[in-house]
């Protein structure tokens, strides 16, 4: 973010090819779509990075959605009811 940093890094590529390949392969193993689709060894690094970004955003949305559902559940349930007790035992 600082000017000094960006000048430093733009003067040379930051990682070796071997390291990048190794890490990119590890990412591939984590990403569900890429695991299924690609059979060849050569997958472009930029594609994997893009898929990783998309996957992380998807996980964020899912957490958000689950938090929504849970808070709605707590809201829709009467405080003294049996259902409330069920939720409380799960959560608290």
């Amino acid at each position: 973010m600082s000017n000094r940093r960006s000048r430093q890094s733009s003067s040379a590529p930051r990682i070796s090819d071997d390291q990048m390949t190794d890490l990119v392969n590890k990412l591939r193993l984590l990403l569900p779509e890429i695991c299924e689709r690609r059979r060849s060894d050569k997958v472009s690094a930029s594609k994997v990075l893009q898929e990783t970004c998309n996957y992380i955003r998807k996980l964020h949305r899912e957490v958000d959605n689950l938090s929504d559902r849970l808070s709605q559940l707590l809201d829709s349930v009467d405080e003294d009811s049996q259902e409330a007790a069920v939720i409380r035992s799960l959560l608290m």
Partner: protein
Amino acid sequence: MQPTSTMNEEFLKKWQMGLQMFRPSIDNASVSERKRAIKLSADVAMASLRKGTTCWSRALIQKTATEDNFLVRQMLSGIKEETLINKKLPKVMCHRKIVRRSKKILMRRKSRSAMEEVAAKAKKLVKRKTQGLRNVVPGGEFMSNNVLLIQETLDYIVSLQTQVNVMRSIVDAAEAGIER
């Protein structure tokens, strides 16, 4: 490298602890306040699994602390991560060996002018994508070293998967319990 059942259990315990702290306000709060409490507790629980050993978890704890300092302190009290709230994020690491090796490669490539353009374009594309990654991983803006960035990303993804799996199980179970 998959979420383990130990991670699931630990996350659930910590998340429950966080929710218990919110308990008084959860009962009387609005839906959006409840959601915020649920989400913040889940994030702190996920980050604390790493016990301060990763950059993303420290960044996430710091970020959550700015939104709800009390909650974070309560959830982490008694653990040394409490000190993480005030700890500075790590300085950018730039492994000298990697830079030296990269410079050698770059010097060699400069003599092959035909391939140079292709390589440059590929590098630009990768650079743009890694920048995108920095935007989604907590603390990413402090990781100018790509190796560190991807290592952190790998760990972050596994932790997120844990968070999602446990939350999904709880919500499904709760919804099923209510419908009966």
